[in-house]
C-alpha cells in the first residue's frame, strides 16, 4: 500500500520538466559558480562591470548637459559644459551639430533631401534583407527584350554624348554644343530608355526594379536640378549619405565583380583571363586603400581626355569598388575551393553548360559557405569608406571632425565620437545579425 502511495508522486517528479527558476539556478551554478576559482572570477568581473556601468550612466545621463544658452549672435556659450567636463557628458554639442554631422554642407533648408535619402537606403536594406522579396516576377521573352533594348538604347545614347564631348574637346572647342535637334533627340531617347528600363526590370525581377528605382530617386534627391529641386553639386554633399552611397554602391557592384574575378582566377580554359585576375587581385591587395583612392583622385583624371570631368565622388566610388572587389574575390574563391569536386562533376555529367553549372550549383553553395567572411569584409568596407577623407570627401566621420573644429565645442570630442560609434555600430550590427539569421535559415533546410 505504501509503495503505491509513494509511486505516483515520484514518477510525476521525474516526468515534469524542472521549473524555470531551478533551471536558471542550475545554469548559473554550472557555468559561473562551479568552483572557488570561477566564483571568485565571476564576482570580480561582476564588480568591474557594475562599477564601470554605474560610472558611465553617471557621466552620460545623471551629470550630462543637454543644452547650452546661445548669445545674441548665435554663438554657443559652453561654460556649463566646461564646468562639468570629466564628470558629465556635454550632449549639447550633438544637439547643436547633428545636422552638420549627418548631412554635411548640404544647403541647410534642403537637408530634408539627404534625410529622405538616408531613410531610402535603410528601406532598401530592409527590403533586400527579406528573402521572400527576391522572387522572380514575370519574365516573358518580350518583356526581357524590351528591358535589354531600353538599356542598350540608353547606353548607346550615353556613349554618343560622351563621344560628342570627346570629339569637341579634341578639336579644341570643349564647350561646343551638339546641334539642338540631335541633342533633343538623344536626350529624349535617354530619358525614355531609362523609364522603360526601370518599369521592365521591375516587372521581370521586382527586387532589381526596386533597387534601380530607389537609386534613381536617391540620385534625384541628392543632385536635384529636376522636378523643381534646386541643384546641389557633389562638393556640398557630406555626412551619412556619402558613407551610405560609397558603402552601398561599393558593395553592390564589387560583389558581383568579385565573383567574376574569383571564377576567372580558377578558370583552366582561359589562362590569359586567369593571369589577369591574379594580377588584379595581387596588385590591389598589395597597396593600401589610401593609395588606391589617391590614384583614383589624382592619376585617373590625367588619363581622361581634357574636358571630361568625372567627379570626385565617382572616382572615390570606383576606387572603393576596385579595392573591395579584390578582397571579396579572395573570399569567394575560398568558397569555390571548399566545394567538393563531385558537385562540379555531377553538374558536368548532367550536361549543364558552364554558366548554368556556375549559377545553379556552384555559386549558391560556395557563397553559403562564405557568408561569415563575406559579411566580415562588407563590415570592414563600410567603415573603410571613412578613408575618403584624404581626397577631400566629407563622410560621416570627417563631418564629426569638422564639427569639432568649431572653437566653443573643441573640447567635446568624446561625445561626438561616441555618437558616431553608435551610428556605425547600428549599421554593422544589423549586417552581422542579418548574416547570422541567413546562415541559420539556410542551414536549417540543408543538413549535410
Amino acid at each position: 500500500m505504501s509503495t503505491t502511495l509513494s509511486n505516483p508522486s515520484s514518477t510525476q517528479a521525474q516526468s515534469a520538466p524542472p521549473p524555470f527558476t531551478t533551471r536558471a539556478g542550475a545554469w548559473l551554478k554550472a557555468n559561473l559558480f562551479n568552483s572557488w576559482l570561477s566564483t571568485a572570477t565571476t564576482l570580480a568581473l561582476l564588480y568591474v562591470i557594475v562599477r564601470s556601468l554605474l560610472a558611465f550612466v553617471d557621466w552620460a545621463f545623471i551629470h550630462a548637459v543637454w543644452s547650452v544658452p546661445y548669445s545674441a549672435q548665435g554663438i554657443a556659450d559652453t561654460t556649463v559644459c566646461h564646468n562639468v567636463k570629466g564628470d558629465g557628458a556635454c550632449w549639447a554639442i550633438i544637439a547643436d551639430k547633428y545636422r552638420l554631422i549627418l548631412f554635411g554642407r548640404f544647403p541647410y533648408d534642403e537637408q530634408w533631401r539627404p534625410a529622405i535619402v538616408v531613410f531610402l537606403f535603410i528601406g532598401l536594406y530592409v527590403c533586400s534583407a527579406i528573402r521572400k522579396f527576391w522572387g522572380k516576377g514575370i519574365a516573358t521573352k518580350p518583356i526581357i527584350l524590351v528591358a535589354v533594348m531600353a538599356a542598350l538604347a540608353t547606353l548607346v545614347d550615353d556613349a554618343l554624348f560622351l563621344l560628342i564631348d570627346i570629339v569637341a574637346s579634341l578639336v579644341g572647342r570643349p564647350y561646343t554644343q551638339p546641334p539642338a535637334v540631335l541633342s533633343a533627340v538623344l536626350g529624349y531617347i535617354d530619358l525614355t530608355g531609362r523609364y522603360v528600363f526601370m518599369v521592365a526590370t521591375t516587372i521581370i525581377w521586382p527586387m532589381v526594379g526596386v533597387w534601380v528605382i530607389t537609386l534613381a530617386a536617391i540620385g534625384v534627391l541628392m543632385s536635384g536640378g529636376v522636378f523643381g529641386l534646386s541643384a546641389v553639386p557633389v562638393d556640398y554633399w557630406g555626412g551619412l549619405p556619402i558613407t551610405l552611397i560609397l558603402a552601398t554602391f561599393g558593395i553592390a557592384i564589387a560583389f558581383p565583380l568579385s565573383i567574376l574575378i574569383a571564377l576567372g582566377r580558377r578558370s583552366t580554359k582561359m589562362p590569359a583571363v586567369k593571369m589577369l585576375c591574379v594580377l588584379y587581385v595581387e596588385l590591389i591587395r598589395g597597396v593600401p586603400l589610401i593609395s588606391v583612392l589617391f590614384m583614383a583622385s589624382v592619376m585617373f583624371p590625367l588619363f581622361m581626355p581634357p574636358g571630361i570631368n568625372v567627379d570626385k565622388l565617382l572616382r572615390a566610388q570606383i576606387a572603393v569598388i576596385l579595392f573591395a572587389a579584390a578582397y571579396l574575390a579572395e573570399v569567394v574563391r575560398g568558397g569555390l575551393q571548399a566545394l567538393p569536386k563531385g558537385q562540379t562533376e555531377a553538374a558536368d555529367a548532367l550536361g549543364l553548360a558552364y554558366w548554368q553549372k556556375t549559377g545553379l550549383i556552384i555559386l549558391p553553395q560556395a557563397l553559403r559557405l562564405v557568408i561569415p567572411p563575406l559579411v566580415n569584409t562588407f563590415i570592414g568596407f563600410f567603415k573603410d569608406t571613412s578613408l575618403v577623407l584624404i581626397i577631400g570627401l566629407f563622410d560621416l566621420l570627417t563631418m564629426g571632425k569638422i564639427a569639432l573644429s568649431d572653437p566653443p565645442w573643441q573640447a567635446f570630442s568624446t561625445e561626438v565620437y561616441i555618437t558616431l560609434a553608435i551610428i556605425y555600430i547600428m549599421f554593422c550590427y544589423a549586417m552581422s545579425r542579418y548574416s547570422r539569421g541567413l546562415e541559420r535559415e539556410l542551414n536549417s533546410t540543408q543538413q549535410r
Partner: protein
Amino acid sequence: MNQITADAPMDTLRDISRGKPVIVLDKVNKWFGSLHVLRDISLSISERERVVVCGPSGSGKSTMIRCINRLESHQEGRILVEGTELTDDLRSLDTIRREVGMVFQSFNLFPHLTILENCTLAPIWVRKMPRAAAEELAMSYLERVKIPEQAKKYPGQLSGGQQQRVAIARALCMKPKIMLFDEPTSALDPEMIKEVLDTMITLAESGMTMVCVTHEMGFARQVADRVVFMDRGEIVESGPPHRMFESPQTERLQLFLSQILRGH
C-alpha cells in the same frame, strides 16, 4: 561462347549478334603526369548490353568510365559514343553528356536543392522542358526508384541508399541512352546495398545500356552480359560472368577473385 576473350574480332562478333555498338574505345591511352593509367584500352559495347567492370583498386576503372562522358580526357586513341567522337569540341561534348547518365560512388546530389529540384534541374535547363512537365517526369522516376514521398526533402535528410536511388532517378530524368555507374554501392552500409542493386537490376531489365564498375559479384552474375577485368590500366580478361568467375583464364584474375572471396 566459351572461347570469348578480350580480342577485338570476337567483340565485334558479339556486337553483330546484339546490335550496333554505342560505345567504342579504340586503343585509348591516358596518363596522369607520368603515371600511365590507361594502356591501349579497346572495348566495344553494344546497345542494350550490360557490362560490369572490376579490378583491384587503382587499376583505372573509374578513369576509364569517366573518359566515356569526358569527365576525364584521354590523350591517345579514339572514343566514340553513339557514333560521335569525343574531342575538345564543346558541341559534341554537350550531345554526348545528354545521352550518357552517370551515378557516382558518393552520390553527388546537390545539397541545396530538394530531391525534386535535383531531378528537374537538368531537364529544365538542358532539355529546356517546361517546369510542370519536368516535375511530372521526375515524379514518375522517383516512383520507379520507390521514393516519391521524399520529393520535397533535401538530400541531407535521406539515408545513403535513398540518396543513391535519387541519384539514379536524377540521371534517368535526362532520358539517357547509356548509364554509367562508378561503384554505386561502395559508400553504402550493407543493408542499403540491396535496395540500390534492386533498382539497378530493374533498370537493366528495362533494356538500358549499362556500364558498371562494381565488386558486387552477385549483381554481375545476375545482370551482366560481360565482365571486364582491369589491372594496372589494362583490360586483362573479359567474358560472360559465369566463365569469368568459375574458370578465370589469367593468373591475375584468379588472384583478384581469391582476394575478393576472402574479403567477403
